[in-house]
């Protein structure tokens, strides 16, 4: 066996086996909290609301689900892709982790060594993330009762978490890609002026399509470039 075959046999094949198995287990696990609420607490969601909520979410998540792995695969590698997209925080955490691991180990992109280094680095980051999340939530627990139900001003503030997020996202757009924001934001304001309480399942899918079309035109005319994107 030459070293490529060894790598294929000892790395690619077992990683694919474990990767596939764990991802499908994770998909099954996604249903558990909802099923628990249904079976043990008798909480039944209105099916139409769930479906419409999912239409709103899927209309942008499906695009990202396909494109993000393709864009980040060269950095994350084979094993790193399985892990990174299972735990999330890909761009802000796993990509820098993989890059740092390559630097520390001194490997070249695209080699078998780089693949192993990236897998190890990202596996380490996964274990670190889960450790922080477990310890952190245990440390937070005693304080949580105090946040909940502690005065009207705090209640008002808590209700505004979404608008605050959108303001913050607006700030990020302005810094990074102001041109891409023009069409979706302009359209959004026009629609909101006309009717400000439409269900998202009706508004979001066409908005996503129009935003992509506008972006395509801008990209073709070289008004926007691929660098520095979210």
């Amino acid at each position: 066996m030459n070293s490529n075959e060894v790598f294929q046999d000892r790395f690619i094949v077992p990683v694919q086996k474990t990767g596939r198995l764990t991802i499908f287990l994770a998909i099954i696990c996604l249903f558990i909290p909802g099923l628990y609420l249904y079976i043990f607490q008798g909480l039944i969601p209105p099916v139409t609301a769930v479906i419409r909520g999912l239409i709103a979410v899927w209309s942008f998540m499906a695009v990202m689900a396909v494109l993000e792995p393709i864009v980040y695969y060269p950095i994350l590698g084979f094993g790193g892709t399985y892990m990174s997209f299972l735990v999330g925080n890909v761009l802000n955490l796993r990509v820098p982790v993989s890059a740092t691991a390559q630097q520390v180990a001194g490997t070249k992109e695209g080699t078998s060594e780089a693949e192993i280094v990236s897998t190890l680095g990202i596996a380490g980051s996964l274990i670190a993330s889960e450790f922080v999340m477990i310890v952190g939530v245990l440390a937070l627990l005693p304080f949580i009762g105090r946040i909940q139900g502690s005065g009207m001003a705090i209640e008002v503030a808590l209700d505004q978490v979404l608008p605050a997020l959108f303001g913050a996202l607006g700030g990020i757009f302005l810094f990074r890609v102001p041109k891409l924001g023009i069409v979706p934001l302009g359209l959004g304001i026009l629609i909101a002026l006309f009717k400000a309480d439409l269900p998202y399942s009706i508004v979001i899918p066409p908005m996503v399509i129009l935003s992509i079309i506008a972006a395509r035109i801008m990209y073709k005319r070289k008004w926007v470039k691929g660098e520095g994107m979210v």
Partner: protein
Amino acid sequence: MDNYLAIANSAGMWVACSVIIVVVLFQAIRLTVIALRAGMAIGMPKKQMLAAFRSGITTALVPSIAILLGLALLIPRLGVPFPWMRLSVIGSVTYELIAAGAAANEMGLEGVSGSFTGTVFTTVVWVMSLGVIFNLLVIGIFTPSIKRLKDRIAGGDEGWMRVMTAAAFFGAVGYMVAQPVVKGGAPLVALIGGFIGMLILGAIIQLGKQNWLKEWALALAILGGMTAAGIAFHYFSIGG
């Protein structure tokens, strides 16, 4: 309202939310073992491999603490275990909040608010969970053939793929950003607060070269927007 939070924080909910964390840890440990063995088989020094593993741990520690701040933003309305699971697996504060907002919206509510009930909560749980199912399906099925897919989708033009990803996301939030602008009141105060907060943080990061702040910027800006809404209510009776 207190009632559904008792369910959201119940022991059973903790168990239901913990299973997937076990899967994540199993995957990470199993791939570590495979990578170490394969590395030895192709003659990599053990030292080099352990250095890579260690650098992964240290690089991830601080940004992971930043994720906890995002967790704190979700807990008041969704209890502890579910947001904890969501942010530990395929999570980002942005996605979770948008998905929760979309579900609440279909239940006729304005955003992630205090008027949640058990039924709203379970709807949010289902939408937030199943909302990421495509992402997992794509990874589970297509990872081995990703290189070939790249050329087939968008002609392998990586720049366009990045632009398209961003455009899809902007398209999704365009209307949601516009709503508070048109409606005014507390939501508008929070929006402006979050916006200004992000501009200030962005300026500090870029001009002051404070890169560590990047991980914290979004959650801090959100907190700033929420605080602005709280202050506006307390002193000027806006919203409520």
